[in-house]
């Protein structure tokens, strides 16, 4: 301890000289250190963060949009599947089988086992489309072309294969 009562401990850390020569501002009126630099730095950081966040958000937004579209598609498909299941049909519908939709003159639809070509001359009513019933009770329209679900056939073949193996 020296004569000023200052502790040795703070020697070097604490400026002991005149206030005006202090390497850091001592007055509350003194300007902040590197104010401009700091401001620039912050702006820069803000920008970077904004860019990064907005990039991330963009991904999220995109994903939300895709999910929304998908949800809409799923709901539409579900509504259509439900509609198709409610169409009058007195035979038992089986997954993997193809059924043919016709519309009577009074606009009432019905499912038939007979394809348009099988009627002979021409179907008794207007042909609408043919649908395959999938394993999950959804429908695949024949007019959808490529999206035809062959899972059922594949599963059937795998099952047949495994049962012959055992």
């Amino acid at each position, binding site marked *: 301890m020296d004569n000023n009562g200052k502790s040795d401990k703070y020697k070097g850390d604490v400026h002991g000289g005149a206030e005006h020569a202090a390497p850091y501002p001592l007055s509350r009126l003194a300007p902040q250190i590197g104010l401009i630099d700091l401001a620039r730095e912050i702006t820069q950081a803000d920008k970077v963060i904004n860019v990064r966040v907005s990039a991330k958000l963009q991904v999220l937004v995109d994903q939300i949009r895709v999910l929304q579209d998908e949800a809409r598609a799923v709901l539409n498909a579900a509504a259509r599947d439900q509609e198709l299941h409610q169409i009058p049909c*007195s*035979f038992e519908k089986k997954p993997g089988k193809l059924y043919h939709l016709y519309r009577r003159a009074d606009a009432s639809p019905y499912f038939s*086992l007979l394809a348009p070509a099988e009627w002979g*001359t021409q179907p008794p009513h207007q042909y609408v489309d043919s649908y395959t019933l999938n394993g999950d009770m959804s429908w695949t329209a024949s007019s959808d072309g490529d999206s035809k679900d062959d899972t059922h056939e594949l599963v059937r073949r795998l099952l047949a294969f495994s049962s012959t193996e055992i």
Partner: protein
Amino acid sequence: MTQSPVKNLDPDYKVADISLADWGRKEVAIAETEMPGLMALREEYKGKNPLKGARIAGCLHMTIQTAVLMETLVELGAEVRWSSCNIFSTQDQAAAAMAAAGIPTFAWKGENEEEFWWCIEQTIFGPNNWRPNMILDDGGDLTQIMHEKYPELLKEVRGLSEETTTGVHRLYEMMKAGSLKVPAINVNDSVTKSKFDNLYGCRESLIDGIKRATDVMIAGKICIVLGYGDVGKGCAQAFRGMGATVWVTEIDPICALQAAMEGYRVVRMDEVADQGDIFVTTTGNIKVITHDHMLKMKDEAIVCNIGHFDSEIDIAALRKYKWENIKPQVDHVIFPDGKKIIVLAEGRLVNLGCATGHPSFVMSASFTNQVMAQIELWKNSKNYKNEVYVLPKKLDEQVARFHLKKIGVNLTTLTGDQAKYISVPVEGPYKPDHYRY
């Protein structure tokens, strides 16, 4: 040759699901053990092919029992094409088994009206100009289409056999009008058909249909049987056997008296429509249960039909109300006041629509008559005019004889003296043709 109005399919059949064939085959194998008449015919004619050259178009409920009939016809040398005579009566596994066995079969449970006629036409027009020269019918729809739409094809047809009361009724009307173009055998009125199939068959299959459709407790209910012919007698007995109170309606004083003698109350539908719990029509007539009757009925009353056609209950009049489908062939019809009645199989045959028809054993008796009729007409058509015949009593007795062993019946043989005393041959026939059994 009549140009085929249909396009033949490849493969030559249409069933709901061919993968059911294995299951169907197993059921056919069981049915064979319960159909001794048909199996006896196969045995008797083994290697003789009495139906060789016969091309049979068949239109009869495509069930497991019918499958045994079809294969019997094929074993006897016939070529067969088949459809079902009712849009709800096909057992898909039976149809699949037949298709898989190479018999062109066009039937599935739940056809619509257009598909029904399409199926029948497929059995008339086969590939390579196949046309029928024999008809086996149930209800007369195939007979009707052949007579009205393709009469020129009937030149080739040697005869037809008809299974049921309704079809036979049509045949007699055609005969009276002079429009019947081929000899016909009325299989229905063989004693071993109508007194067995109609009576004992319905006695079992009516309850089967109602139970599978609704699981309703029959004991304690008021069951109303409309009509007390052979079918009505079986239905009334079945309900009584389950512990129900049975009422009967009749227009024929003889049948009405029979019902009364059996202890059934004979009533009028107008008076009891609001009291019955289960209604079954067996008349073969039209509008036996009317819209007004159904309007009066109790909430949750069950209405069904076991006659051949769907004309007995005025289903058309119910179409204006809300229908709530509970499961296939079971519907709630909801009246404006909120009352519901349960309609089974939309007024079509309840035993075939909601269950699987008659048991094999009783169908064996019916179908043995069918096969005998087909053989008789195929071989001896020249002996017949374009009229309606029944099988000779000797054959009727033979059908019964075929079925005795299976159920352990020990028949007594007349002694020579006894036969002489009642003036019948020892080996039959035992009763005069007018005997009513």
